Structure formats: structure tokens, C-alpha cells
């Protein structure tokens, strides 16, 4: 166990755990946007930034990645940290003016929009938190979506913005997207699902008849787990 101090509170944390995890386990709240328990932390939103002092050196680091160290002194609310969080939220509000999620988060944290940042009109509500791409790669394992371009033009999508052969239509990306930017639609009958410009034929449950998953997704699960496809034609509720 590692002894450190977070916001003047003496904390004990397991070796290898991040400052974020140590804080959360001890009731200390640190805001996050791009963090997800099931994927590798990317440290891209910078909202979870904290100020750490180690010996003589003080610096700002992201708590989602920085691992606890003996004798570390952490301040989750220092002036420098609050300034970083304020700027991040102002920048995101300007990038995604339509996003309720971002606006509410900013309001909750007492951050007002910066009038000198001209709002974008072409980014939708994508804040480039990377969770969709990471989930598709690490949790689902098909890597159907990725990033194109760089800088502010960076965009999430399928290679060459074409329907992807790798996409199994599972919708994990849409599920995990914090701002609802990724659109997944269904036909009125439920027989079809649309996501990333691809149409998926949905399978009806053998028992209840509800259309519950794309054929490709069940085939993929069968391939990955070895469970025969026929066994997968029953929906989760009916199993």
C-alpha cells in the first residue's frame, strides 16, 4: 500500500493504482469526460488534471494515468487546475455549442462560455474523447472506427468514410459516447439497424420474436467465444 495525500487527506492506495482511482475510492470527486473503466485511459480531455508536488517539483498531470507514489501530495482544486478545467470546458462549449451534456457539465462547475471563441458549426457534439474508438478496439475487438486527419479537423469514423466490413453493428460506440454524437438508427419494423453508413439485418429472438442484434454481431461473438451460432439466436432476456 502506498501512502499519499490528496486534498490534505491522508490516503492509502494500492501500488499501481492511479490518482483518480485512489481519489474515487476515498470519496474525493475529480471530474472526467474521456475516462471509462473498461478502456485504457487516453488522457485526452485533461479535465481530471490535478496538481502534484513531489519533493521540490510541482506540476500538473492527468489523474487518470498518473500512478500513486509514496509521499505524493495531490491538490485537485488548485488555481492552476481550476484554470485548466475552465479553459477545457469553454473550448468544448465553443466546439460543440449544441451539446447539452457539455453545457450542463460546465454549469455544474461554474464555467461560463467564452464569448471570444466563435462557436463551430460543423463538429456536431463530438468532443473527440476517443471512447468510441477505444471501446471498439479494446472491448469489442474489431477496430471498425478510427481517426482521420489531425488537429481540429480530426474526425472519428470508418476508414475512408465508407461502410466498414469490420463493423458488426453492435452499437457499443454509440452506447459509450458521452454526448450522443454517434447516431444509431432502426427501421420502423426493427428489422434493420443503421450505423456508420451501414445497414445491418437484425436477428429475431427464437423465443420472444424481438429483433435484438445484428447477424454480423452474433456471428462475431460465435467466432470469438466458440459458442455455436444457434445458441446465440435467443435474446438475453429469454436465456
Amino acid at each position, binding site marked *: 500500500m502506498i501512502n499519499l495525500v490528496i486534498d490534505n487527506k491522508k490516503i492509502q492506495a494500492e501500488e499501481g493504482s492511479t490518482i483518480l482511482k485512489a481519489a474515487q475510492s476515498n470519496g474525493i470527486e475529480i471530474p472526467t469526460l474521456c475516462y471509462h473503466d473498461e478502456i485504457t485511459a*487516453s*488522457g*485526452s*480531455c*485533461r479535465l481530471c*488534471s490535478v496538481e502534484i508536488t513531489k519533493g521540490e517539483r510541482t506540476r*500538473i*498531470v*492527468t489523474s487518470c*494515468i*498518473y*500512478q500513486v507514489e509514496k509521499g505524493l501530495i495531490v491538490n485537485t482544486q488548485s488555481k*492552476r*487546475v481550476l*484554470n*485548466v478545467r*475552465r*479553459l*477545457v470546458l469553454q*473550448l*468544448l462549449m*465553443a*466546439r460543440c455549442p449544441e451539446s447539452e451534456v457539455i453545457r450542463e457539465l460546465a454549469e455544474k462547475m461554474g464555467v461560463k462560455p*467564452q464569448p*471570444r*471563441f*466563435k462557436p463551430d458549426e460543423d463538429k456536431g457534439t463530438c*468532443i*473527440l474523447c*476517443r471512447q468510441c474508438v477505444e471501446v471498439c478496439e479494446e472491448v469489442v475487438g474489431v477496430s471498425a472506427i478510427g*481517426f482521420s*486527419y*489531425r*488537429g*481540429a*479537423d*480530426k474526425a472519428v469514423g470508418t476508414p475512408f468514410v465508407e461502410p466498414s466490413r469490420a463493423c458488426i453493428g453492435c452499437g457499443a460506440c454509440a452506447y459509450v459516447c458521452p454526448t450522443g454524437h454517434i447516431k444509431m438508427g432502426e427501421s420502423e419494423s426493427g428489422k434493420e439497424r443503421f450505423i456508420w453508413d451501414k445497414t445491418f439485418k437484425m436477428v429475431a429472438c427464437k423465443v420472444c420474436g424481438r429483433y435484438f442484434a445484428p447477424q454480423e454481431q452474433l456471428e462475431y461473438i460465435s467466432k470469438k467465444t466458440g459458442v455455436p451460432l444457434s445458441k446465440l439466436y435467443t435474446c438475453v432476456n429469454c436465456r
Partner: protein
Amino acid sequence: MAKMDSLLTKMKEKGMKSLSPSKTKITVGMATCGIASGAELVYNALADEIEKQKLDIILSKAGCIGMCYREPLVDVIEPNRPRLTYSKVTPKNVIAILNQITEGKSKDKKPYCRIDEEDLIINEEKIRYLTGALPDDIKAIPLMKEIDFYKKQIKIATRNCGFINPGNIDEYIARGGYFSLQKVLSNMEPGKVIEEVEGSGLRGRGGGGFSTGFKWRSCRNATGEIKYVICNGDEGDPGAYMDRSIMEGDPHSVIEGMIIGAYAIGAHEGYIYVRDEYPLAVKALTLAISQAKEYGFLGKDIFKSGFSFDINISKGAGAFVCGESTALMASLEGKAGEPRAKYIHTIEHGLWDRPSNLNNVETWANVPVIISRGREWFSKIGYKKSTGTKVFSLVGNVKNIGLIEIPMGTTLKEIIYDIGGGIPKGEKFKAVQTGGPSGGCIPKELIDLPVDFDELTKVGSMMGSGGMIIMDETICMVDVARYFEEFLEGESCGKCVPCREGVRRMREILDDICKGNSKEGDVELLEDMSQAIIDGSLCALGGSAPNPVLSTIKYFRDEYNAHIREKKCPAGVCTEITRSD
């Protein structure tokens, strides 16, 4: 090592004959800078005329000797005579230059400078060009080492640039090349090599200034059987071409440095990451690697030392951010060039999660000389905690534009006026920009500052990789800040919010200021944003992006005020406001 001894001795002799042959040799400076000035036309004209007149003259190529402001440069080496350098040569001068050789008199084209003899810095051996008395027709030609541009220079990293054909490994050997490797393999334990480099005080020449020896030691001690040494050849600062010149003009200096470093660290595989926009450097390095392999300096069980090592070249794909070490390694692995947090060092978990030692081109090029001359000698050159020399690209509004290598501690004033010759066209000095997009502008009040890793940082700039842009009063400092933010906006990888979104918002505000659309409070807003961007960015691209803005606000606030309050551009650059006058 007997085989290595005899190979080196044999090739040194061969190289010497190639450097100073028994018949006349003409060398044309054919680095990118030379070619851009027209050197290829001169080379072809010489080749044609030599053939036409059936002259028994050897025509060769060399890299960048540094005097870019006088290019195209042509060196004539006649046996027993001083080496003569002709400058600003055009195809029209070819006949005159050849006449001087065949008829023995300089007619229409006078040589710019001469060299009677050279002291090789790596081994203190002499190369004598002139034997006997100085011929009368040459007496008026100044010695290269005495002209202002070269007087204060000490060429360690660029010791061979302009003096060898980079495609000729024997010439590299003749000037002391690969003897340091021999010394290391036959006589020095890896620990001793690290001691020498550490004791020399060599610090990363890419701008980071981290102790090279300490890095090597840490990598050697890191856990893991497989380790890598990497050369960062992704030089990206606008105006900087130090690494390009070394890679093009003396690729073996980098290779030899890397073999020595790999031996010290215990790495058996090396990578040179070269930006895609340097095709000549890639060509030169590729050829040099194959030659080194042929001679046995690379490969398995090098000269039966038990040490094996190979180098691969990897090309960039047009991203400034790939000069950042973790982004470079991601790119080497075939992934998108995006940096990652450096809380866990690449020394322990770098390329493919293995211990990796990354050094800049110029850093590697220093290594053979440190091994040969020793750490005491090297550490005596320089200033305080910055030992040795630094290569700078002196560009912009300065008379003597070129590549210089000077001891750390030389002042900005010496560089701009003594070496650089001052400001041309009767203009006045305004500022010097150092450190590229990560650096800042220094006004005339501070030009007595010595240049090293630490002094410039104290005043809000940094020495950086060596790009030094001189600016006169026709330059608008707000426009300079805008330029750098625009550059960084285009190069941001886009991973983290503060850089991806913050830098472009700064650029937008600067655009507004330059166009007369600014608001009172814009400067304060830029300052406020800057601190958050510095603190919040994931890597040093974003982390240092506000520097050009902050340093111009600090030293040229009145220019910002004029743009914002009076809608005027004092330098007359911002056309949208100047025009409205």
C-alpha cells in the same frame, strides 16, 4: 581487432588520396542549400566543360560547409596549393575557374577564401594543402578560419560537412572516422563509454538539453533484454536545417555515434527516423548504412567483438509532432503519430514498450569526438552547465545567412553582428527568434545574453534545436506570434483539448488583432489562456505553444496596443489595418 586495425589503416590511406589527390580536384557544395542556390547547374556546367576541354580533373560533391550566404560554393584543391573556395558561382564562372587552374592565374573570378592547412578536431592530425611558400596570386585571399563568419566557430558536430563527399566512407575514415568505434570496441567497457559521455557534459542538442550520459546510463540499467537506440531526424522547426546538413553532409558521424551508444547501452537494433521532406538525407544515410555494413562496422559480431548492431531507416510522413519522442515511437511502430503521457519514461518503456534511448542527430554526431578527445577536453569548451558547441541556423534579416557551430556561451550580439555581419539593407535589428515554435523572441536590450541551455530560458525563450531567426524593423511581432500559432494549429495531433482547441482559438484572436477586429482585453485573454494551455497540454507541442505569444506580449506590448487600440501596424505588415490608414 587486428582486422579492424588493418581495414582502417588501409581505408584511411585510400581516403586521404581521395581527399587530396595527386591531380586537381574540384568539389561543389551540393547539400539542399547549395542545390537551392543553383549548385547543380554549376556542377553540370563544370562536368561539361571538363569533358569538353578533356581536362584531367576530378569533380566531386560535398555537403554544407555553412557559408550558405555565399552559395553556390566551389572548392578547388590543386596539389601543393592552398585549397581555394569560390563563392556565388554561376555556370558563367566555370570557364574562368578552369582557366585559373590550367593557366595558373585567377582572372575574372576571384576566390573568396583559402585554407592552407587544416587541424582535424577529432584527432589533431593535420591536412596540409599548401606545401612551400604562399604563391603571390593567393596572398590577398583571406584564410577561411580568419573571416568573420568562421573566426569564432569550433566545428565538432559539423567537422566534416563541406569537406568530404558524404557518399565516400573512405574520406570519412581518412578524417578520423570509425577510429573512435575501434577505440571503444577494443579498449573500453560499456560503463567506461558512458562515463566519458556523462563526464563530457553533453546535453541533448535537439533542444531538450537532458544529460546524454545520464540517459544512456538509465537505459543501460533499465530492465529488458531487448533495447533500442533511436536517432531523431525529424527536424521540424521552421528555419532550422542543422540536422539536415549533418545527415546530408556527414551521415557516418551519426552512424558511428549510434554504434558507440548502442554498445554502451546494450542495444542491438537502431532506428534513424528521418522526416519525409529530407530526401537527400534519406539517400545519404541509406548509402552510408550499406557502406558501413560492407566494411563490417554494422552487422553481427562486429569485428569479432561479440557486439552485434544494425540500423534501419524509417521515414516520417509530414508531421511536426513526430519530432516528439513518444509520437516518433508511435510512428515507428506504424501507428498514428500521437504522443502519450511521459509519466513513465521511454527510457524504460519506449519503442514496443522496451527500453529506448532517443537522441538528436547533432547529439549523436558529437559522440565520436568525445570518445576520441576525451571528456575533459569537451567539457572545457562551452559555458557553465552547457559544455561543447551548438550548431545554429542563422537565418532571416541578417547578412551572413548560414550554418554555424559555436561554443556554448557565445552571446547573441556576437552571433548577429560578429558572425552574422549585422542587418542588411540599412535596416535596424528588432528581435531574434530562437527555439522555433516552442521558443520566443528576444529584443535588442537582451542581446548581450550568452546562448546556452539555461540563459535564454530565463528570459522567456529557449535555445531550442538551433534555429535562430533574425528580425528587423520591417517585421510585425504580432504577425510573428500569429504565424507560429497558425503553424502549430496545423501540426497539432488533435488528441488533447487544450492544444487542439486552445491553439486555434489563440490564432483566431491573433488573426482578429492583425485584421483590426480585436477587442480590448484580448491580450489579457491570450495570457490567461496561455497558462492553462501550458499546464493542460498532453505534450510539449501544446505545452510550449503559447511561448511565442507570451514572449512577444512581454517585449513588444506596444505593438499589440497599437494594433488593438489604434488599429495600426507600426511595421506596416498587417495590410488590413495598414491599408485603412
